[in-house]
C-alpha cells in the first residue's frame, strides 16, 4: 500500500441545513419594502440592512427637501405613472410623506429635477434591495 493511498481526503462538506425555520417570503418582501433594509436585518444581515436603512430614507428625504414631486397615478401619462410606481417603492417613507402631504413638488424650483431623481431612485433602489433580500431568503447568497 503506497503512502499516498493512505492519505484521507477530507470529504466534501454536505450543504448544511439550518435548524432555523424558513422565513415566509411574502413577509420578507413586505418588511423589505416597508422598511428599507428591513428584510436584510430580519434575515441576519445587519451590516447591509443598516446601510440601506440609513441611505435610502436619507435619499428620499433629500428628494423631498429639494422640492421633488411624489407623482400621482396617471394611467393616461405613462411616464408619470411609472414615476409614481417608482415612488411607491420607497415604502414607509413614501406612505408617511403622502400622509403628511409632502412631495407636492415645485416645478419652477431649480432643484425640482434633482429632487425627482432622488425620490425615484430611492424607490427603485429599494426594489433592488427587496430582490436581494429575496435571493438571501432562498439561500442563493
Amino acid at each position: 500500500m503506497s503512502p499516498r493511498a493512505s492519505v484521507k481526503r477530507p470529504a466534501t462538506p454536505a450543504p448544511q441545513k439550518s435548524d432555523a425555520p424558513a422565513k415566509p417570503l411574502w413577509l420578507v418582501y413586505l418588511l423589505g419594502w416597508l422598511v428599507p433594509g428591513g428584510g436584510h436585518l430580519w434575515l441576519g444581515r445587519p451590516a447591509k440592512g443598516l446601510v440601506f436603512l440609513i441611505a435610502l430614507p436619507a435619499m428620499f428625504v433629500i428628494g423631498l427637501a429639494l422640492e421633488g414631486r411624489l407623482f400621482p397615478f396617471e394611467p393616461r401619462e405613462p411616464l408619470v405613472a411609472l414615476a409614481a410606481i417608482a415612488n411607491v417603492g420607497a415604502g414607509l417613507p413614501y406612505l408617511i410623506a403622502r400622509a403628511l402631504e409632502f412631495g407636492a413638488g415645485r416645478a419652477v424650483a431649480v432643484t425640482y429635477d434633482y429632487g425627482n431623481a432622488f425620490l425615484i431612485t430611492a424607490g427603485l433602489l429599494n426594489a433592488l434591495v427587496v430582490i436581494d433580500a429575496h435571493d438571501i431568503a432562498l439561500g442563493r447568497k
Partner: protein
Amino acid sequence: MNIQSHLLLMTLFACAVSVVGGTLAKDDLRQQVRAGAAIFGTLVGGAILVGWILYLFPI
C-alpha cells in the same frame, strides 16, 4: 434645501447611489468599497464627460 450647485447635487446623488449599489453588489467590505468607488467614478466621470460633449456639440 437651498443648494443650487449642479455639481454638488450630482456628487451627492452619485455618493448615495454608490453606497447602496456597492453594498448590494458585493458581500465583502473591501469589495463593496471598490464596487461603490467604481459606481461613483462612473456616474461622476460619465456626467462630466457627457457635459463636455454637450458643451462642444450643443444640441
